[in-house]
């Protein structure tokens, strides 16, 4: 049973909200950090702080080693080699990099990019902007009433004009786990690059990029127990060699003259400027922590809490649940609404009891338009949450209903 020992590692869980203990059910937005991560980042500043890659002195070499060790840890977590892992500020920057570079290298007038109706704005707007610049078109695969991708619509919209398919691994609203290997196989058959927003999957389940079959995979450090300001884009080596840089400047060059420059090899080619070094070291510590629990156990625990929440919510006739009804087909989150009560009211009433859930459009306005609601509530779970917390959450939903219905 991991609850008690794991919880003790997260200092913030000892704080109160008003006179109530904090029940934090918004890890899909950002996770909390164990002491080991806070300490690793602080220790870097106290003992090893220097800029990386360019110092001749030994302190810089030590900082560079720590930075590259963090890259190796992240690579190992997803079954990749370190040279294929680019550090970014987070998923959003990683997806902007992907859309820009794929656009420059592969997309021209009349070409198409396929996204889905369930994308987070971070995996939608970069493609819209790239398409606008390149004279291309963005098309969106429909979502079924059950909250899954409409496979027929995907097959129908996929064509030789499709240069990229951009899709979430796990929807941050519906929780749906999309069949990336099947999507990638179909996309590769027409020559499209496959870009996966893995912000809600890498933190919560075992993932091997080799099995996923995608070409570019983006995720954030802060949703997987790491610091803010650090994330990663994994890319297939041949593709990274082909793609142009996104940001340019220091650290990403081979040779510079006054009128032109040549690029360093990946991953440095995509890491212009001083990177988030301490944050990378903190992310390395977060990966160590997750590996210590084991990603299979992380997934099992998330599925257990999601099952409890899902069953409890489905049991209440005044609650509507969005997304797949089978917890095995979901990430560790549940979006829902309470009849006649605005999601912001539900979230405010739960906050009165110290329970933090999300309410709003969760950066997925097109999906909410498809669901026919302006906003939803979302509860999401992680390694430090417990079955007791889920029970307290369900009881608070009942009280919210009684208060305002």
């Amino acid at each position, binding site marked *: 049973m991991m609850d008690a020992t794991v919880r003790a590692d997260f200092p913030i869980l000892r704080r109160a909200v008003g006179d109530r203990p904090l029940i934090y059910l918004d890890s899909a937005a950002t996770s909390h950090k164990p002491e080991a991560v806070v300490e690793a980042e602080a220790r870097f500043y106290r003992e090893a702080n220097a800029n990386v890659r360019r110092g001749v002195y030994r302190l810089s070499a030590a900082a560079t080693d720590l930075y590259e060790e963090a890259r190796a840890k992240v690579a190992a977590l997803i079954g990749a080699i370190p040279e294929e892992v680019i550090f970014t500020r987070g998923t959003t920057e990683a997806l902007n990099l992907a859309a820009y570079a794929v656009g420059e290298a592969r997309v021209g007038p009349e070409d198409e990019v396929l996204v889905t109706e369930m994308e987070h704005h971070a995996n939608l707007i970069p493609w819209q902007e790239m398409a606008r610049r390149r004279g291309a078109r963005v098309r969106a695969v429909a979502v079924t009433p059950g909250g899954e991708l409409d496979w027929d619509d995907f097959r129908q919209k996929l064509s030789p004009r499709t240069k990229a398919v951009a899709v979430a691994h796990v929807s941050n609203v519906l929780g749906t786990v999309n069949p990336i290997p099947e999507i990638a196989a179909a996309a590769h058959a027409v020559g499209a690059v496959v870009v996966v927003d893995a912000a809600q999957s890498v933190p919560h389940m075992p993932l091997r990029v080799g099995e996923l079959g995608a070409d570019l995979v983006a995720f954030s450090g802060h949703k997987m127990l790491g610091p803010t300001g650090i994330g990663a884009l994994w890319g297939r080596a041949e593709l990274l060699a082909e793609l142009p840089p996104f940001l340019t400047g220091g650290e990403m060059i081979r040779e510079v003259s006054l009128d032109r420059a040549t690029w360093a090899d990946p991953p440095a080619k995509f890491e212009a400027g001083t990177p988030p070094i301490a944050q990378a070291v903190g992310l390395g510590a977060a990966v160590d922590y997750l590996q210590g629990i084991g990603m299979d156990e992380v997934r099992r625990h998330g599925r257990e809490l999601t099952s409890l929440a899902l069953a409890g919510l489905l049991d209440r006739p005044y609650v509507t649940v969005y997304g797949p009804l089978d917890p095995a087909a979901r990430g560790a989150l549940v979006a829902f609404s309470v009849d006649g*009560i605005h999601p912001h009211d539900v979230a405010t009433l739960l906050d009165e009891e110290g329970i933090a859930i999300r309410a709003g459009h969760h950066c997925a306005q097109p999906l909410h338009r498809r669901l026919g609601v302006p906003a939803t509530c979302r509860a999401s779970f992680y390694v430090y949450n417990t079955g007791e917390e889920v029970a307290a959450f369900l009881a608070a939903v009942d009280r919210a209903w009684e208060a305002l219905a």
Partner: protein
Amino acid sequence: MSPYEEVILDHWRHPRNKGRLVNPDMVGVEANPLCGDVVRLELKLRDGKVEDVRFDGQGCAISQAASSLLTEMIQGRPVADVAAVKDDDLLSALGGVIRTRLSCAVLPLRALRKALAQAPKEGGR
């Protein structure tokens, strides 16, 4: 302070002046696209005063209760006084509103200011 003081619960459960006017002199609609709240305020004027007022809308308890309460605050009042109603006047009448929900509470005031910014319709008394 509870986010749902009795005054908010009362106006949410029993909204005052909800509906539409026939031939209103002024109309203001405000929405918050981020959460889907919508408030429409309609005013009928007579002798420089708000003779009649209605609100219509949908959204959270705070925005809808604030709209209902605002109609009571301005009914029968001189237009100049109505134009001078401040955010804080409405917020304190609501018994205080938590920081994270202020934009919900002031939505009807934004609709009111929009209505007042319009010239009264031709033939409006």
